[in-house]
Structures are given as C-alpha cells and as structure tokens.
C-alpha cells in the first residue's frame, strides 16, 4: 500500500496542474463550478471503488499531451520537420478556410519538390500561390473550379484574362498556375471535387481504395488527362487508366486513398488538447486534411 500511496501522491500533483487548465478551458456542469477538490483524488474513494493501479493509468492518459501550442507559424513548420519531396495536404475552398500563414511559413523554409493536395491553388503570389511562385511545388492535385483561358501566339503561350463577367465573382484566379502548367514546369492532376474529398477521408479512415460512379466514360476513366506538358507544348505524361467493376448493373471506378506527411489546417478556435471548431463554410476540406495527414498543424489565429 505504501507504493500505491506514493504513486497517488505524484498523480495528485499532476492533476492539480491539469485541473487548473481544465477549469480555464472547459465549462463545468452546473453545481460543480466551485468545488475545490475532485472526489476521486482522496485515498478513501480509491480504496472503496476502483483498484488504484487502474486509476493511476487513467491519470497517465489524462496527463499525456500530444499537442503543442506554439506562437508563430514558422515554429510550427519547423516542428513538423517537413522535407523535400513530401506530400502536403492543405484545406480550404477558395479563400475561406485556407491556411495562408502556414503556407507562407512553408514557402520561407525553402522546401522543394512538394506534392500539394488542395482544392485550388490560392491566389497569385498569396497563400499556396506563394509556393507556386517560388517553384517549390512539383505536382498539384486539385479540382480547380477556376476559369483560365490560354491562347497560342507564335509558339508562345499567353494566358488570357478573358471572361470579364466572372472576373469579380471568381476570387480564385491564378495566372501563374496556368503558365507553369502549360510550359511544363508543373504537374497537375485533375481530380473531381467529390472524389478528392472522399480520397482524403478514406486516407484518414484507413481505407486503401474505394469505388465511385463519378467520371465513368470520361478522360478521368480512360486516362487521357494531360498531367505534364513538355517545353514544346506536347503532352509528356498522361493520367493513369482506372480499373472498373460492375455493381448492380452500374460501372464504378476504383480510386485510391490519399495520405500525406504534413497537413495544414485553418480553424476558428482550438484548445491545447487538439480539438478544433470551424466557422461556417470554412470547414470544407479542413477536417479531412487533418485526419489524412501524419502530422497536422492547425492555424487558430483570427
């Protein structure tokens, strides 16, 4: 029993720290707000109800913090140990919910040959567009609900900013993206938005692949979407042909899950335990990216 009392004493000390934190962060149920001591701390209760070692383990679990709270984006990116050739999962739909500060911090580290998975690629020289501008991205996986037009004049590719009607509405315009894609500096893999979301979700949920009806009979199925152009403007790499299977008289495509080394997420509020809340439609791809990545960084600056 002596050993047991020692461990309980230690855990009590740890618990006091946790309790202070909890009182600050969490809302207690009514009537328990002003209680100074938690019931299960006393020896009598432990001996009466539960074997002490079980409780000691519980304390250990509670006192274990896997998350760190850091002041700046640069520190967080350093802690992630991101290296050349990693895959980066970034949340955000257009401007809302996109982790801009973290993207800029990654751009400052000078990491190269990244494959970035995101619905769209920021704006010109801003957000993920900054990574593009410094040519740190090797491959981009996106669905891109963006208009960009291009014309060929005398062998040179000119990105024309047409569609003036939509100019005000579409904030996600990125000329640099189109230029790099057409001149062969960037590989782009077009993924339908629904399958992109589901592939990320599957990656987080531990499902290696799944069947979807989207894109049957299109270039996505037959593998004719150009991923990379060469310098002459001809296609160098095409997308892969996808397996099919019939269920109940309908054909479905096999899509593989996406997982990544680092995930960057923008949220509204976060606590030191790693719980996040999102505001409005800023939720979009953020929870999926957080689940599918091995190391996720959350930007809770507002």
């Amino acid at each position, binding site marked *: 029993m002596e050993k047991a009392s020692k461990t309980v004493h230690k855990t009590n000390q740890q618990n006091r720290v946790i309790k202070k934190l909890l009182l600050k962060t969490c809302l207690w149920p009514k009537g328990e707000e002003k209680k100074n001591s938690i019931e299960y701390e006393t020896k009598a209760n432990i001996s009466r109800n539960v074997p002490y070692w079980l409780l000691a383990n519980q304390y250990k679990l509670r006192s274990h913090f896997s998350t760190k709270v850091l002041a700046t984006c640069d520190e967080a990116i350093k802690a992630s140990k991101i290296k050349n050739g990693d895959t980066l999962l970034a949340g955000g*739909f*257009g*401007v*809302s*919910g996109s982790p801009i500060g973290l993207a800029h911090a990654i751009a400052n580290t000078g990491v190269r040959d990244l494959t970035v998975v995101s*619905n769209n690629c920021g704006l010109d020289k801003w957000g993920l567009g900054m990574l593009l501008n410094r040519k740190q991205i090797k491959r981009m996986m*996106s*669905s*891109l*609900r*963006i*208009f*960009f*037009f*291009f*014309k*060929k004049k005398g062998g040179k590719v000119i990105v024309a900013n047409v569609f003036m*009607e939509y100019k005000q*509405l*579409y*904030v*996600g315009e990125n000329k640099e993206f*189109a230029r790099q894609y057409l001149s062969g500096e960037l590989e782009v893999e*077009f993924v*339908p*938005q*629904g*399958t992109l*979301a*589901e592939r*990320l*979700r599957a990656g987080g949920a531990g499902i290696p692949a799944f069947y*979807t*009806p*989207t*894109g*049957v*009979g*299109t*270039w*996505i199925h037959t593998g*004719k979407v150009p991923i990379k152009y060469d310098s002459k403007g001809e296609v160098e790499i095409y997308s892969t042909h996808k397996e099919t299977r019939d269920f109940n008289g309908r054909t479905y495509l096999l899509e593989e899950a996406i997982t990544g080394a680092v995930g960057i997420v923008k949220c*509204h509020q976060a606590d030191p335990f790693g719980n996040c809340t999102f*505001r*409005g*439609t*800023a*939720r*979009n*791809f*953020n*929870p*999926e990216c957080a689940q599918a990545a091995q190391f996720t960084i959350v930007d809770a600056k507002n």
Partner: protein
Amino acid sequence: MLLSNTMPKKELKFCNQRYEFDDKEMDLSNLKERHKSRFRIVKRAAQELKDNMVVNLGIGIPTLVPNFLPNNVKLWLQSENGILGVGRYPYPGEEDPDLINAGKETCTAVKGASIFSSSQSFGMIRGGHVHCSILGAMQVSSTGDIANWIVPGQFVKGMGGAMDLVSSGSHVIVTMEHTDKNEQPKILEKCTLPLTGMQCVKRIITDLCVFDIKPDGLHLIELLDNATLEDVKAKTGCKFEIKSDLKNVKVLIASYFVLFSILVLFFFFCDSGNAKEYLSQYNEKVSTRSKNISFSQIQTFVEFHQNNTKQLPSIK
C-alpha cells in the same frame, strides 16, 4: 431532415448582383436579345422545381433560377462546399468571408440551414439525396452525354463538383443557349469535346425549346415563344422525335400580355363610375380606421413599450 413550411419567402429569394431581373425593375423592351434568351431559359427552368426539393444549382444561368419561382414553392439549395439551405446574396456590410457558395461568392444561410464538411456534402450528392441539379453545358449529345470542363488547346475550367453531380443519378437538367457564339449547334449526335458524364442528362432547356432525353433518343416536348419547328431543326445537330401533342409555351410573351391587360383593366376601371365609388368608400374606410385610434392610445402604447424594454436584462 427538418422541413419547415413556415419560412417567409423573402429569405429564400435570390437578389442577383449582375443581372437585375427583379419583377419591379423589369423593362422587357430595353433588353438585348442575348439577355432576352437567357431570361426565357431561366423562367422556363423555374417551372421545373417543386416545393421542398433539395436542389443544386450550377454557375452562370442556373444561379438566376430562384428569382422566378412561383409563390408557393420553397426550395432547399445545396452547395457543394457544405451548406444545405443557401439564402439570398448579402446586403453591403453583411458579407461574411466564412459563408460562401460553390461559386466562391459570399452568401447567407436560411433559417434551419445546416453546414457540413465537403466529403459529407459529396456523400449527399453521390448517394442521390439531391433531387435535382441544374447545370450549364458546352455540348450535350442525344444519348445524354454532357461536356463542360475542358476545351483541348483553348481552356481548362476544371471539373469541380460537376462530375460528381452529373454521375449521381439524380434528375439532371441542362440550361443553355441553343447555339454557341459562332451559331453552331450545341446539341449533337456525339460530343466532340471530352465528356463530364455519360448518359446522365434527363432534360435540356434552351432559348428555343425543351427536349427530353429517353433511352431511345431525343424528344421535343415544347416550343418556347415564337420558335418554329423549322428553326429548331436547323439549329440542332441531330435527329429528334416530335411529341404528338407539342405545346407552344409562351414564357416572355405571356408576361407582356399580363402587363398589357393590367393597363387596360386599370383604365377601364378608372373610367367607370363604380370604381370611383369603390375607391371613395375605400378611402373613407382607411380614414375612419386611422381616426379611431386616438393620440392618447398611441402615447400609452409607446410608454408601455418603453417600460418593457427597460425591464429586459442586458445581453452582457
């Protein structure tokens, strides 16, 4: 899912920023022909939607559709980025960067709307829980294939959520102009552009007519306004069957007629003696009603209101 019928219609009505086709400001004589044709498409497409439907609208012409809904119809608009219950556009000063629709425009949420993540919203679409989706297109084939995401060598639009919407098996309606800018047909035997989906379109609404797509091919159901059969035959790139009881629906001309008839009735009414008597009676009623409320009554009401507001606890 919660469905409430008590929602006021104002909340669901879209006010569009680009084209001001509000009923009050509508002046049809000044519209250009291109705008007229779009207006015709939108008005016809609004008739397709029924009460309590969950609808997904594409970008462009389909966003105008909720402006012309009949009075008894209330919709649930779904947006791919994760809202069910998109409302009107915000007034200046009301915009919120964290509330946007699939077109990345700021929007508002209707009372009772729900917000979820992208994977869940596409689960909703793929699972067939969206009743109807209205899309624009560059080409449609007679078997129901649709193409609208890439023109090789000219532009890439990106498929976005269109590919998922189209292949979900829901009721897909295509709204588009009958021919492109070079006056070449958009409805073809087989699409020349890369496809977005195979055998998925159920109905096509153009500025000339309405087509139904069935397993045996195209069927012409309606002709809109002054369109003739010969005109439609010349401007479509494939054969189609004509329904035996072909309707000639008047979309724009009907509204002309209504305006005209109202004017005629107004003049008629003013001239006749009965109307004048009625008007005078009405005026008397109104005046007596206002007279009945004395000044003291108003004063007591105001005082009562002020006292009550004081008693209310402050929010902080």
